[in-house]
C-alpha cells in the first residue's frame, strides 16, 4: 500500500468522513463545470431542494458545443444555444462565475483553469469530464466525474470516493528533438495498455519529467485516463511555481511564500512507498502515432501496423476490429499514409507551446492539395498570445484555417466533424470509432508538430525530417 506520496498526503488532507460501506467522503477544492455535463446536475439539485454549498469554489466556462467559425449568439444550432443558455441561467441563479464567450478568459475548461491560476498544487479538482486528469500536472489530485457526482459536489463540495493505488511511472533520459510529451504519453499507453491504470493514480517522475514545461506536463497528465488511470500527477517543483506566480487566482504577496512552502511539503518524499513502479527511457522514444481504434494502438512513425503475431493474445480481437475499421493491413508502414483532415487543438494539445511547435513546421510551407487543415486555440488567452507573436499569420499563410477557441473536432459536438470515411491527423486524445463525428471516420493521434508535418506532406510524415537543424 502506498505511503508518503503526494496522492496519500492530499487524500488525507481532504478526508471529511468515512462513509458506511467503506468509501471516503473527500472534500473537493476546485470544481470546474461546463455546459454538457451540468444541466441535469442543476436539475437534480432543484429536485432535492438543495443549494450550492461553496459557489466560490465552482468555476464555469463553455467549450464543448461552441462553433469555431463564428461564435455570434444565438448559435445556428438551437440545441447548442439552449445548452449555453441553461449554463448561463444556472450560474446566475447560484452565483457561480462563468468565463463566457468574449470575456477574454473563455476556453477549454482544462486550458483556462491552469492559465487563470485556479488549479494549484495540493488541491482536489473534479469536473464532469474525464480529461480533468490534466490538472494533476500541478500536483493536484484531479479526476473526472459523472453528472450525479457533479450534483453531489455542488450540494456538498465533496464526493464519496474509494482510494486508488499509486503507480510511479519513472522516466529516465530526455526526449529528443521532434519528440514531445504527446509522444511520451502515447508511448506509455502503448507499452502498458489502456486498462493497466484502472484502480491506480499515475505519478509521473524522473529526469525526463523534471525537464518538462508545465504545458508538457498537462499533455502528459491529460492522457493518463487513456491509460485507464483516473488521475495522473507530477510533483510540484520550481517549474510549477514559476508558471503560477502572478496568475489571477494564484496567491499573492505574503500568502505566495506560505503557499510555496506548503506545496513543497506535499511532494512525494524520498521515502515514499508506491504500490508499483514502471521505468521508461525517454531517449529511445520516437514520434508516436496511433494506427487503430484505442489510444493504446500506437507505433513509432518509423514502424508498421503490427501483425496479429506481434500482438498480445488478449489484444488480438480489438486489433482485428481495428484493421477492418481503419482499413489498414498488418505490415503497412504508417509513414506515407494519406490523410484528409488535420486538426490542431484540444485540451491535450491546444496550448501556446503546442501551436508554436506546429507553426515551426508550417512556416514557409503549404498545406498539401486536398487537405483541410485547421487550428483551434485552447482558449481566448491562447489565441491572443498566439496572435501577438504572429502564429495566426504563419498558419494562414501556410493554408491552415485559424479558428475560435473550443473543443471542436476532438469530439465533434460542434459543427467541426469528419465526413464519411475521412482520415484525420489529430492532436486530440481519442481515436475511438466515430469519435470525430462520423460513424466511419478515422483518427490518427499524434503531436501537434506531427499534425503540421502531415498537413504539409499530405500524409503521415516524420516531423524530425522537417525541423530546421
Amino acid at each position, binding site marked *: 500500500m502506498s505511503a508518503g506520496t503526494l496522492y496519500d498526503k492530499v487524500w488525507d488532507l*481532504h*478526508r*471529511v*468522513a468515512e*462513509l*458506511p*460501506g*467503506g*468509501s471516503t*467522503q473527500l*472534500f473537493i*477544492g476546485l470544481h470546474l463545470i461546463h455546459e*454538457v*455535463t451540468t*444541466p*441535469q446536475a442543476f436539475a437534480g439539485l432543484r429536485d*432535492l431542494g*438543495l443549494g450550492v454549498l461553496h459557489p466560490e469554489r465552482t468555476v464555469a466556462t463553455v467549450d*464543448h458545443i461552441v462553433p469555431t467559425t463564428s461564435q455570434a449568439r444565438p448559435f445556428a444550432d438551437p*440545441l447548442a444555444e439552449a445548452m449555453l443558455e441553461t449554463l448561463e441561467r444556472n450560474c446566475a441563479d447560484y452565483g457561480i462565475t462563468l468565463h463566457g464567450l468574449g470575456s477574454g478568459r473563455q476556453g477549454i475548461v482544462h486550458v483556462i483553469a491552469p492559465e487563470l491560476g485556479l488549479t*494549484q498544487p*495540493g*488541491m482536489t479538482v473534479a469536473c*464532469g*469530464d*474525464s480529461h480533468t486528469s490534466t490538472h494533476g500536472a500541478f500536483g493536484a489530485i484531479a*479526476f*473526472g466525474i*459523472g*453528472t*450525479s*457526482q457533479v450534483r*453531489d459536489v455542488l*450540494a*456538498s*463540495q*465533496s464526493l*464519496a470516493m474509494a482510494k486508488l493505488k499509486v503507480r510511479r511511472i519513472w522516466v529516465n533520459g530526455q526526449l529528443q528533438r521532434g519528440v514531445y510529451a504527446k509522444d511520451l504519453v502515447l508511448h506509455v499507453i502503448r507499452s502498458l495498455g*489502456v*486498462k493497466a491504470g*484502472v484502480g491506480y493514480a499515475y505519478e509521473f517522475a524522473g529526469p525526463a519529467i523534471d525537464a518538462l514545461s508545465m504545458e508538457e506536463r498537462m499533455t502528459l497528465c491529460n492522457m493518463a485516463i487513456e491509460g*485507464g488511470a483516473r488521475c495522473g500527477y507530477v510533483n510540484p517543483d520550481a517549474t510549477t511555481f514559476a508558471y503560477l506566480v502572478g496568475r489571477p487566482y494564484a*496567491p499573492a504577496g505574503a*500568502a*505566495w511564500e506560505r*503557499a510555496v512552502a*506548503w506545496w513543497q511539503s506535499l511532494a512525494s518524499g524520498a521515502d515514499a512507498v508506491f504500490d508499483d513502479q514502471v521505468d521508461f527511457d525517454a531517449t529511445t522514444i520516437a514520434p508516436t502515432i496511433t494506427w487503430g481504434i*484505442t489510444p493504446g494502438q500506437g507505433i513509432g512513425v518509423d514502424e508498421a501496423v503490427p501483425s496479429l503475431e506481434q500482438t498480445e493474445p*488478449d489484444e488480438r480481437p*480489438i486489433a482485428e476490429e481495428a484493421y477492418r475499421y481503419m482499413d489498414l493491413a498488418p505490415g503497412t508502414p504508417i509513414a506515407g499514409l494519406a490523410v484528409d483532415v488535420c486538426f490542431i487543438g484540444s485540451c491535450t494539445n491546444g496550448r501556446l507551446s503546442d501551436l508554436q511547435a506546429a507553426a515551426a513546421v508550417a512556416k514557409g510551407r503549404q498545406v498539401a492539395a486536398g487537405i483541410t487543415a485547421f487550428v483551434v486555440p485552447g482558449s481566448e488567452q491562447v489565441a491572443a498570445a498566439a496572435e501577438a507573436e504572429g502564429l495566426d499569420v504563419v498558419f494562414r499563410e501556410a493554408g491552415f484555417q485559424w479558428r475560435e477557441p473550443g473543443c471542436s473536432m476532438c*469530439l*465533434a*459536438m460542434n459543427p467541426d466533424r469528419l465526413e464519411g470515411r475521412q482520415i484525420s491527423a489529430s492532436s486530440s486524445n*481519442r481515436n*475511438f*470509432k*466515430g*469519435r470525430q*463525428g462520423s*460513424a466511419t471516420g478515422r483518427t490518427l493521434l499524434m503531436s501537434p508538430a506531427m499534425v503540421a508535418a502531415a498537413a504539409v506532406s499530405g500524409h503521415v510524415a516524420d516531423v524530425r525530417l522537417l525541423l530546421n537543424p
Partner: protein
Amino acid sequence: MTSAALASALPAGPIIQVNGRALVLRGDDIDTDRIIPARFLKCVTFDGLGQQVFADDRIELQGAHPFDRPDHQGARLLLVNRNFGCGSSREHAPQALMRWGIRAVVGESFAEIFYGNCLALGIPCLTASHDLMLAIQAAAAADPAAEFELEVASARLRSSQPETSWQLELPAGPRQMLSTGQWDGTGQLVANGAALAATAARLPYMNNFPG
C-alpha cells in the same frame, strides 16, 4: 413503455435483486462514445437517451446489433467483457443503458468513472473472471429467453434454464450501498456539514494560506 412508466421503473431504494433476461455484448474496451455518441449529449435532460444507446453501432449492423434483436427487448442484465465503459466520463452512457432497460451489468472489468456513474444510478456492476464470464455469456447466448436472477447481497447469479449459478464479485462498499439503498448518497454527504466545515478550515488554500 411510456416515458412516465419507464421513469417510475427507474432504480429506487434498496437494490436487492435484478431479475430478467440477459443480453450479451462481446468485446473489450467498449468506450462511452460508442455507448452514446457525442451528438446525443446535446440535451438538457436524460429522458430521450434510451432510444439512442449504441446508435452508430446499431446503424452499422442494420438490425443485427444485440440491442436491436427482438428476443433481447426487455432484457435487464447486460453481459460484457473487459474495460467496459472506458473513455469519456459522460453519465449519459449509463443513463442510456438504464433508460433502454438495463438494470445490472456483469463483466470482466469496468472503467472507473463508468462504474461510479452506474453506482450513483443504482445500477450494480459485478465482475467475473475471464473464463467465468465466457461461460455466463455462452449460457445466455444459448437461450436468449433464459431468465436470470442476480442477488446483490450474495453477488450470486442464477439461471433456471438449465439450473446453474455463478459466484460473481462485488466489493463490500458498493454491495452495502446498493443493498441498503444508500447508493443515492447526496443527502448523506450534505448531512456531514460540520465535518465539511472543519475540513475546509484546515485546508490552507481555503483560507488564503494563513501564517
